[in-house]
Every structure is written in structure tokens, then in C-alpha cells.
């Protein structure tokens, strides 16, 4: 079996097995059912497929079903093989599983309790991991450092870092001292194309968090499960996790990490709602564990004491022990019961009971839980739970999931929530100047951008929930209120929220306030509830309007998303093409949907996109960040977009414009790889070799999408003004009159006028796309069509000798002068790494054909291209190569963002056009002008970094300084601030030298 087939089969198998397992899980059905009833949109979607779906679409579905059916047969065989098979099985369902459970609670409990319980229960291992990744995800830490950190920790504690020797991520774990000439083990993490897995294991995961979460619960190839540091495990609130997370790598040396903090946390529950979850960690759990887990050591929750009984399987049988991990979902339930010790989570039934549950009742509940989870045999056949992902019920409505996180915004970047009492060591850098300087309380989660407004109901994913939540807290679906007026308008709803947060932090010190906390929580909760339906209503309209703007592509995204999200991970290789066809047939079909239905559908799309692949999630997150002007990345992108829109004519040629754009995107990609603004870091979501394509996609979305039309117009203007347009027009007209033979076609039968018209349509569609990659895909379809026509007529294989003349003929017949700019657009903006492949080849051919036509008259005269034309090609060639090999470091163009800091009015930021050779003196006078400073002599330009502020000497070059700072391996946040010089005598010129 070739590896592709194998892959495909694997995909199917995973899907099928998941389906089987999942459908067998009655509770799961119970779970979906109410959801299905509530979300009539689902039905709507199915209806839509049936009613409007073209033949192709239904064919596709049938095929899919068919394939599943046929693959189920192989399933058994496969199951037997798994133990031997090296090929990793994909288990991205893990995450869904986790969510599933969570959803479960939300469904059943949500209405009855205040939401506070759900808040507690939501803190799964995955949540904890995701929130505290700055602590354990230390990619830059060396092996020695990792050893040093881990040796001080009990066995089971781990780090994820990047090994310099292997050039791979490794999981460094402190293993038992007993076994131990090497107490710290570094296990490489395998990154296949779309997944992460541990070396030697056959289970792979959609991202790093899921992987680690899994090994916190099931040991698989490890001798025992991973163990989170005590501080993380015992954190009771998001707030506490945030505190831990802020320490970053410094956590390991901090007091947090040492012996237990001695805050007197009462053992007994304080409030009714907390009765089950509250316990100060280990004692109860251990007791519990001794009673119920006993033999099954590998199911031990991560909180357990360091010593773990030896693994039930000898090390030799590692591979064969792999299926063990499939017990995981059961453990998960167990784990939900006891996970993170303080969070003993009641079963849903428990929660549904009157809240006066006593702790003995709780014990019973736990027994129940355990016996439930023990019912299945200890080593069930490997049920591939991945399927949980697909049939996992669509996200519970926002009303349900949002309150869960009320008052606990995730990851507020330390700078954005300046919390003075906290130690700031190791905290992450990078935040815009105004926030650092401004003493005002920043908005809750400034990162959540307006996109959220549209898709806030996309829940399942907890990050999304958290974001949506913070968004729900804003009165309107506005972009984050970074400016004052907005903030004050947001005051009333965020008031309770802030108080809630305050309380949270109190509570982390002493639990005495937990009762009041609960009360304080409620307003926030009800706020979330009351707010969301409105937002839901708002959604469709907004979405469809966006759809209108974006035209076909957006539609493809929206309609395709269901299938896409479903298929992307597992069926990607084989089905992507088909999916696309379906999507296109849907979008290019002649039907015109009623607006309301369209809205419905896009809402569906939003819903389904909760099943997004990590890739989509990453792209989405970057796109969000790019719209967030308060982030450095966002401000760069937005400033650049504005700049291009306003100053497109400042480029000497269209080519130059495109090349600057390409350069900008390349630089931004490089920046995104280094920045800490992306949270969680992209390395944890996307396998190493996929990061670049994902970033590329994101850049298209951030930069090209808004600029597409501007660029098109600009390119056309350039052509017109240079006279090239006229020449092209004339030559095209001339070439159109020629017979195929005149253009060099020899033998092959050219397409007839119907086919030409079809191709024309494809070219027209191509023009609507903003992404060069999508354009190229359409171009490939045109080429395929030409080939098909040629081959149909003769049956033989044609090489370039026949194809290129035919392509030239077709291009001439299509008579689309605009195609030229389109080809230029693709040529210059396509990811350079794709230029070598098939897309690059046919793009080159199209470019060549166009070049021939452009110079048709001369060619007619000389039978060869004029030397001038040849020179152009050569120049183009060298430019292209030059550009690839040297991205300049006059970084991020000629912009400089300067903040004006006034004592009374806070900060105002402006982006100035500053060339690399502009001196600080010039920048100062520019600032004085821009900010309308009456007394510029009292002001100066400062470079403000995390904890330093340096006045720049007048003869320095700010742009150079910026470039140098950017090129450092560990980029720290820095800002240029234009402010009043406190004392003129203290002017100390500072030269920033490159210390590399």
C-alpha cells in the first residue's frame, strides 16, 4: 500500500472507529440531542445540502458515506494491527473529548447553578496547560538548564523544549530516581505533517497542549504519567494560573515552585457550590485514589504523589502497550472527578442535585463515578476516539459556554494588565507603548478583535470561549476599547467583572471571600446570558454583509467550512480537492440565496468553524491579531495597509509595489515566528514544517485581502500610464486573429469557442481571488482543461513543445488584457517556496505566453523576442532571485511608531514615515509637527524597553535601532516615546550598539 493510500485509509479508519465508539456512547447522544433541537441551524444546514446542493455535492456525500462503510470492514483488522504498526494513529479527538465532557456539564448544569460551578469544572488539565504554557513550554531552554530545573522537581514534572542537537522539540521529564543514571529523560516529539506525537508512541495529537494533556492522564509509552507542578495543579482560579503563567521560566526558581505555599486554605468546603470541588489538594485525592484507583497506577491523576508503582508492562513491550492510552476517555472521567485535586468535579448528576450536598455524599458520588468508569475492561480494544471530534456536538450556544469563564479572561498579557504587586520576572514582552505607560486599567482582553463580534458563538474551543466571553462583556461588538471613550462606555458592564477579578485575587490568598465571590460572580454571569442572544441575532446580518463584500471566496469559506473543518485533518490529502469542488459548485452555482437564509448559513459556518483545525485556528488568531491595533503586529499591519492605500503611487512601478508587499509579508512572517504576541506560541499548535505555510496563509488574509482591490487598481494604473496597457491591448487583438499554427501549435487540436468561453470564465473567477495561491490553483485548473482537450482529441501525452504554444493561443483567444496584471500579481506575491512546484511551472508558462503576446508585433517581425524583451526577462529573473536571497533589515519598511506621552492626557501613538537614515533630530522635529507641540525644545525621543528608558542622542538613527532590536534573537518589547525631558541637564546620549 502506498503511503498516501495508507494515510487515507487511516483517516477513514479513524473517522469510522470514532463514529462507532461515539455512537455507542449513549450519553453522547443524549448530549447532542438537545443541542440538535436547539440549534435548528444544523437541520437548516442539512436541508440546505439536500435542497441546494448540486449533484456534485450530494455525490460527494454519498461517496464519503460509501467509503466509510467500506472502510469499517477494515477497521477490525486495523485494530489488531495497531500494536505492531508504526504508523501513528491520529487521535486528535482527544481535545474534543475533553470539551465534550465540559460541554456536558454545561448542558446539564448550566441552567441551574450560577455558572460558578462550571467555571470550576472547566479547569481541565488542558486548560491549565494552555494557560500556563509560558512555564512549561520553554523552547529556548537548553538541555543543561532543563536538567537543572527538573532535578529540583519531583519525578513526573516535565518541560517541553527544543533540542539544539536534534533540532526537534523534546519532552524533558524527570523520571524516577530509582531507574536512574539519567534522571532526566528527553523524549523527542515527532511532528508529522499535521500532528504531534511522542517518539515511540503511536498516538498523535492535533497540537502540543493536547499531547501533554494526554500524557498527564495516560502514560502510554512513558513509565508513568506526567505531573504538573503543584502550583499549577492546585490553582483554583484562572487568576492563579495567570499569576503562575506570568512568571514564565522564572516560575521554576520562584517560591511558587518550592514547597507548598502555606496559605491556610480550609479543607472543608466553604460554600455549597464548592462543596465538591474544594479541597486543599492531595490529602483527599490520595485517599480517594487509594480507595478507588489502587491498581491502576497509570490512571493516576497528575497530582498524585511522586512515587508511582512500576508500570504494569515491562519496558520491552512498550509498543504493544500503546493501546493502553485508549483508556484515556474513561480516565478522563475519573480525572474529571479528581483532576487537579482541588477541582474535584462532580458528575453532572451531582450538580443537578440540590446543592446541599454534603461531603459524604460527595464521596458517594465519587464512588459512583469511579465504578462507572471501571465498568469497561481495563484494556479495551483501541477505540479511536478521534471521532469524538466530528460528531462532537456543535458548540453549546454562547449562553451556555460563555459564563463559564466569566471574570477570568485568559492570558491577559502581563503588560496589558499591569499588576504592580506581581513579580515581573520572565514575563512576556511586547505591548504597545501606550499600554505600558498609561496608568489606566486596560480593557479586559484587548486582543479580542471585532471578528469575535461575528463569531462569538463559536464555542467548543476554550480559547474561543474565553475570548468570546470577554467580548460578551463589552457592551457592543466593538473592537477592544483601547481608547478612553470606548472604555468609559464599557464601564458599566465591566464594572462587576473587575470587581470579580479583584475578588479572585483575594481568594487566592485566603478563601474566606469565596462566598461573596459567588455573589459577585452572578451579575457577570447573567450579563453574559442576557447579552449573548442579542449578539446571536446580530450575527447573521453582519456575517452576510461581510460575505457580500468578499464575494466568492468568503462564500467558499463559509459554506465549505463544515466540510472543511470536518475533513481537513483526516481527509485532507485525499478529499481536499473534492471538497473544494463541492465548495465551488456551491458558491459558483447560479442560485441566489435569500438573505436571511444566507445569514443562517453563515451562522452555521461560524458554528462549524468551532471544529476548526489547528491550522485554521492559527490563521484566524493571526488575522485577529493583525486587526488589533494595540498589538505591535497589528499596528504594523494596519499602518502598512493604510500606507499602501494612501501612497500606492509612490512606487515607481507595479512590480516594485508588489515586491515591497511581498517583502513586507516575508518580514512579517519572520516577525511572527519570533514574537511573543502570539499566544499560545505557534510552535505549540502547528508542526514545525507547517508553520511557514500557515503563516503565509495568514499573511494573505491579513494583508492581501484588504489590499487586493487597491493593488489591482494600482497595477492597472501603472500599466496605463506607462503605455504598456495600450501595447498589450493592440498585441492581444492582433494575436487573437492568428490561427493556432501561427502561434506554433503543431498537431494538437485547439479548444473550440465553447471551451475558450469556459476558460475565460475561469480566468474571470481567478481575478476575484485575493490569495495568490488560490489564483494559482485556478490557473492550474485552466491548464488541466487545456490538457484534457488536447489529449481527448489525440490520446497522446503532450509535453511543453505542444502545451506552451497552445497556452499562448488560448490566452490570445481569451482576449483578457487584465490577465497580465493578474499573472504579475501571482508571480510576485506567491510564496517563493511554491515557485518550484507545479503551480510555479504553469505560472511561469502563463507568464511566458503573456510575454510572447505582449511582444507579438515585434516577434512577428523578428520571429524572436526583441533583445529588449529578453532583457526584461533577465532582469525580472535577477530581481526575483535577489529578492529571495536578501530580505533587507531596514526593518518593516520605513515606518516608526512613536508615542507621545503627556503627563495629563496619557499616550497618543502615531506612525511616522521615517527612513533608515533619518536621525533622531529629524524624527523629533517631525514629532513636534505631528503632535503639534508648542515647545519642541523641551521634548525628546526615548527608547523605552521593559524596564529602561533611554533618551536617544540626536545623531542616532531610530530606524536602525529598531532594526537592530528586531533582529535580536529574543526580541523584547520596545517603544519609541516622544516626551518631555524631565531635566534638560540630564541628556545622556545613548548609543545602541548591536550586541550580537
Amino acid at each position, binding site marked *: 500500500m*502506498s*503511503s*498516501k*493510500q495508507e494515510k487515507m485509509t487511516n483517516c477513514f479508519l479513524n473517522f469510522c472507529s470514532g463514529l462507532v465508539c461515539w455512537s455507542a456512547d449513549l450519553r453522547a447522544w443524549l448530549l447532542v440531542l438537545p443541542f440538535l433541537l436547539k440549534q435548528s441551524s444544523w437541520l437548516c444546514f442539512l436541508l440546505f445540502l439536500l435542497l441546494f446542493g448540486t449533484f456534485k455535492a450530494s455525490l460527494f456525500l454519498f461517496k464519503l458515506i460509501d467509503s466509510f462503510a467500506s472502510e469499517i470492514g477494515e477497521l477490525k483488522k486495523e485494530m489488531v494491527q495497531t500494536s505492531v504498526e508504526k504508523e501513528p494513529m491520529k487521535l486528535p479527538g482527544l481535545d474534543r473529548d475533553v470539551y465534550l465532557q465540559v460541554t456536558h456539564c454545561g448542558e446539564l448544569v448550566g441552567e441551574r447553578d450560577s455558572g460558578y460551578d462550571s467555571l470550576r469544572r472547566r479547569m481541565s488539565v488542558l486548560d491549565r496547560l494552555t494557560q500556563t504554557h509560558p512555564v512549561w513550554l520553554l523552547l*529556548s*531552554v*537548553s538541555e*543543561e*538548564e532543563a536538567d537543572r530545573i527538573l532535578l529540583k522537581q519531583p519525578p513526573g514534572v516535565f518541560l517541553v523544549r527544543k533540542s*539544539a*542537537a536534534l*533540532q526537534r522539540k523534546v519532552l524533558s521529564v524527570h523520571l524516577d530516581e530509582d531507574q536512574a543514571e539519567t534522571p532526566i529523560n528527553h523524549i523527542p516529539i515527532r511532528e508529522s505533517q499535521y500532528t504531534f506525537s511522542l517518539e515511540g508512541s503511536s498516538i498523535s495529537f492535533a497540537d502540543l497542549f493536547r499531547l501533554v494533556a494526554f500524557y498527564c492522564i495516560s502514560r502510554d509509552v512513558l513509565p508513568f504519567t506526567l505531573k504538573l507542578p503543584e502550583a499549577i495543579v492546585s490553582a483554583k482560579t484562572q487568576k492563579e494560573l495567570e499569576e503562575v503563567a506570568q512568571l514564565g521560566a522564572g516560575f521554576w526558581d520562584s517560591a511558587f515552585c518550592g514547597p507548598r505555599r502555606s496559605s491556610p486554605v480550609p479543607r472543608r468546603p466553604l460554600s455549597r457550590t464548592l462543596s465538591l470541588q474544594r479541597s486543599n489538594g492531595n490529602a483527599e485525592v490520595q485517599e480517594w485514589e487509594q480507595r478507588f484507583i489502587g491498581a491502576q497506577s497509570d490512571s493516576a491523576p497528575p497530582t498524585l504523589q511522586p512515587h508511582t508503582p512500576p508500570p504494569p508492562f515491562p519496558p520491552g513491550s512498550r509498543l504493544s502497550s500503546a493501546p493502553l492510552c485508549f483508556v484515556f476517555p474513561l480516565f478522563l472521567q475519573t480525572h474529571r472527578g479528581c483532576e487537579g485535586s482541588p477541582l474535584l468535579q462532580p458528575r453532572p448528576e451531582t450538580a443537578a442535585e440540590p446543592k446541599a450536598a454534603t461531603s459524604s455524599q460527595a464521596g458517594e458520588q465519587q464512588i459512583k463515578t469511579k465504578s462507572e468508569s471501571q465498568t469497561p475492561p481495563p484494556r479495551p480494544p483501541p477505540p479511536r476516539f478521534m471521532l469524538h471530534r466530528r460528531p462532537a456536538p456543535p458548540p453549546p450556544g454562547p449562553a451556555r459556554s460563555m459564563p463559564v469563564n466569566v471574570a477570568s479572561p485568559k492570558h491577559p498579557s502581563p503588560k496589558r494588565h499591569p499588576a504592580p504587586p506581581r513579580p515581573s520576572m520572565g514575563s512576556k514582552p511586547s505591548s504597545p507603548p501606550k499600554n505600558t505607560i498609561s496608568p489606566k486599567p486596560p480593557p479586559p482582553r484587548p486582543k479580542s478583535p471585532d471578528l469575535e463580534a461575528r463569531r462569538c458563538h463559536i464555542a467548543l474551543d476554550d480559547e474561543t470561549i474565553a475570548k468570546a466571553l470577554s467580548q460578551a462583556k463589552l457592551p457592543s461588538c466593538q473592537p477592544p476599547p483601547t481608547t478612553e471613550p470606548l472604555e468609559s462606555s464599557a464601564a458599566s458592564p465591566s464594572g462587576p467583572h473587575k470587581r470579580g477579578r479583584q475578588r479572585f485575587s483575594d481568594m487566592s490568598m485566603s478563601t474566606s471571600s469565596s462566598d461573596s465571590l459567588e455573589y459577585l460572580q452572578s451579575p457577570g454571569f447573567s450579563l453574559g446570558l442576557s447579552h449573548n442572544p442579542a449578539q446571536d441575532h446580530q450575527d447573521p446580518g453582519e456575517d452576510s454583509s461581510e460575505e457580500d463584500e468578499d464575494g466568492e471566496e468568503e462564500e467558499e469559506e463559509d459554506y465549505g467550512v463544515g466540510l472543511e473543518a470536518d475533513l481537513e485533518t483526516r481527509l485532507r490529502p485525499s478529499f481536499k480537492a473534492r471538497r473544494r469542488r463541492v465548495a465551488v459548485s456551491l458558491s459558483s452555482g447560479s442560485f441566489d440565496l435569500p438573505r436571511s437564509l444566507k445569514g443562517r448559513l453563515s451562522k452555521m459556518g461560524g458554528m462549524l468553524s468551532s471544529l476548526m483545525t489547528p491550522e485554521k485556528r492559527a490563521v484566524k488568531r493571526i488575522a485577529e491579531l493583525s486587526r488589533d491595533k494595540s498589538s505591535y503586529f497589528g499596528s504594523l499591519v494596519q499602518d502598512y495597509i493604510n500606507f499602501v492605500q494612501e501612497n500606492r503611487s509612490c512606487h515607481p512601478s507595479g512590480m516594485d509595489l508588489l515586491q515591497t508587499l511581498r517583502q513586507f509579508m516575508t518580514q512579517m512572517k*519572520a516577525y511572527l515566528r519570533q514574537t511573543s504576541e502570539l499566544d499560545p506560541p505557534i510552535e505549540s499548535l502547528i508542526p514545525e514544517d507547517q508553520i511557514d505555510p500557515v503563516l503565509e496563509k495568514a499573511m494573505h488574509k491579513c494583508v492581501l485581502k484588504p489590499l487586493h482591490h487597491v493593488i489591482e487598481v494600482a497595477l492597472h494604473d501603472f500599466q496605463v500610464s506607462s503605455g504598456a496597457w495600450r501595447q498589450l491591448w493592440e498585441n492581444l487583438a492582433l494575436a487573437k486573429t492568428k490561427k493556432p499554427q501561427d502561434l*506554433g501549435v*503543431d498537431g494538437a487540436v485547439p479548444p473550440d469557442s465553447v471551451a475558450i468561453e469556459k476558460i475565460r470564465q475561469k480566468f474571470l473567477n481567478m481575478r476575484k481571488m485575493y490569495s495568490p495561491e488560490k489564483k494559482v490553483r485556478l490557473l*492550474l485548473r485552466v*491548464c*488541466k482543461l*487545456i*490538457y484534457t482537450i488536447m489529449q481527448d482529441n489525440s490520446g497522446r*501525452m*503532450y*509535453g*511543453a*513543445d505542444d*502545451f*506552451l*504554444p497552445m497556452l499562448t493561443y488560448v490566452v490570445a483567444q481569451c482576449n483578457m488584457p487584465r490577465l497580465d496584471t493578474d499573472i504579475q500579481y501571482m508571480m510576485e506575491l506567491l510564496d517563493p517556496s511554491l515557485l*518550484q512546484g*507545479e503551480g510555479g*511551472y*504553469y505560472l*511561469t*508558462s502563463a*507568464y*511566458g505566453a503573456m510575454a*510572447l503576446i505582449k511582444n507579438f508585433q515585434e*516577434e512577428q517581425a523578428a*520571429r*524572436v*523576442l526583441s533583445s529588449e*524583451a*529578453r532583457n526584461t*526577462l*533577465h532582469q*525580472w*529573473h535577477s530581481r526575483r*532571485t535577489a529578492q529571495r*536571497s*536578501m530580505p*533587507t*533589515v531596514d526593518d518593516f519598511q520605513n515606518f516608526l511608531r512613536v508615542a507621545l506621552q503627556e503627563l495629563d492626557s496619557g499616550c497618543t501613538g502615531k506612525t511616522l514615515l521615517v527612513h533608515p537614515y533619518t536621525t533622531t533630530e529629524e524624527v523629533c522635529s517631525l514629532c513636534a509637527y505631528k503632535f503639534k507641540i508648542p515647545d519642541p525644545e523641551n521634548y525628546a525621543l526615548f527608547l523605552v524597553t521593559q524596564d529602561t528608558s533611554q533618551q536617544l542622542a540626536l545623531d542616532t538613527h531610530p530606524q536602525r535601532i529598531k*532594526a*537592530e532590536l528586531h*533582529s*535580536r*534573537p*529574543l526580541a523584547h518589547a520596545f517603544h519609541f516615546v516622544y516626551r518631555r525631558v524631565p531635566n534638560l541637564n540630564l541628556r545622556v546620549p545613548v548609543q545602541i550598539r*548591536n550586541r*550580537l
Partner: protein
Amino acid sequence: MAIRELKVCLLGDTGVGKSSIVCRFVQDHFDHNISPTIGASFLTKTVPCGNELHKFLIWDTAGQERFHSLAPMYYRGSAAAVIVYDITKLDSFQTLKKWVKELKEHGPEDIVVAIAGNKNDLGDIREVPMKEAKEFAESIAAIFIETSARNAVNVEELFQKISRSSSSIWLKSHSNYSFVYCKSLPSGPIIVTMQLLAKTKKKILCLHSLLLAYSPNITLAVQQKWQRHQRNPSIQF
């Protein structure tokens, strides 16, 4: 196994059998792994070479004179160029010489040139003596082989030879490449180098030594940086 992509450009007169050679090469052991391609002018095939896989991306060009001017776009960035001539047509051998000259002048540095005399099966109407062609190939240090696309003679061997010689050249050209890369950047040459190296999926150490071997000019900088990196691993090398 690491996959390395090799762009191979096919040059030569029209009708000498450029595409036949590729079709034969690609189809002989029909590989289910290859994605269905659009048409025969761009084909790919992956073959093992040593401890890595080489994926040939084969770019066919149109042989007609009028398309000659487009050739630079096709051979740009190629690891190898296969110039095909027809042993039964002396003209095609003359064209070959023109191609060799053009590649020398405008082609990528370090491009592997392979000369393939096709239609070996028609030996009785041969116009180009094998000896002459072979001597010419030796004079320009090119790979030489006579093939027959029809009878599948020497097609595989042709690409194996390309595979082997591009292996050795690649290392050299790459370190040169990164050298150029470094020099063009006023700040942080090493970081950029690193990025490039990471892209090629080679281990740092191995490339470090390569850099030393091939680009003595930056040896010092790299060494200093490397030492610093070893002293303080938090500095990314």
C-alpha cells in the same frame, strides 16, 4: 528520510524526445504517491539517493526557436539541466551546444548539466557519433548518456547520475548561498544563516562545519557566535 527537491529543467530542440524521456522515467515504475499532475510538461518523481529522498521536479520547455527566449525563466533555480539531442539529427546537437553556452552565461551557478542523446534505438541512422558527443560532454564536465525513451534504455540511469552529482554540489552551493545571505545583511548575519539552515532541515553542527569548510570568510563570525552560543545556550545560534 529527508526529502530534497531537485528542480530539473529539460532543454533541447523540439521533437528530440524531451517529454518522452520524462514520461518514461516517471511512468516506468508508476508511483502511486505522485499527485496526479496536470499534464506531461511538469512531472515529479521521488527516488531514493543515499540516505535521503530526491524529489525531481521536472520542468519541460518548449523547444521551438520562438520560445527560446523564455528559457531563462524555466532554468532559473534549477539544480540540473538535461539537454536532450536526437542522435539522428545533427542539428539538434548544434542546438545543444547553444544551450550549453547559454547556461554557462546565464544559468544558475553550480547547475548540473546532463547531456542525453536520445533515440539510441535508431543507431543505424545515427548522425551524431557517440564519441564526439562524449568528448564534448567531458570538455564541459557534463554528465553524458545515450538513452532510448522508447525502449527505456538508460533513462533511469540518467536521473541517478543527476541525483548523485547534485548531492555533492548542493552542499557546496548551499553554504555559498548562506554566505551570500550573510554578507548582504548588515546586522545579525548568523541569525539569518540559521534561518536558512533550519529551512534545509540540516542539523546545526553539521552545517556549522560545512560553513567553515566552504565559506572561510565568515568562519570567524560563525565561530565566535558558536562559542558564545555554547557558553550561553539561551542565545540562539
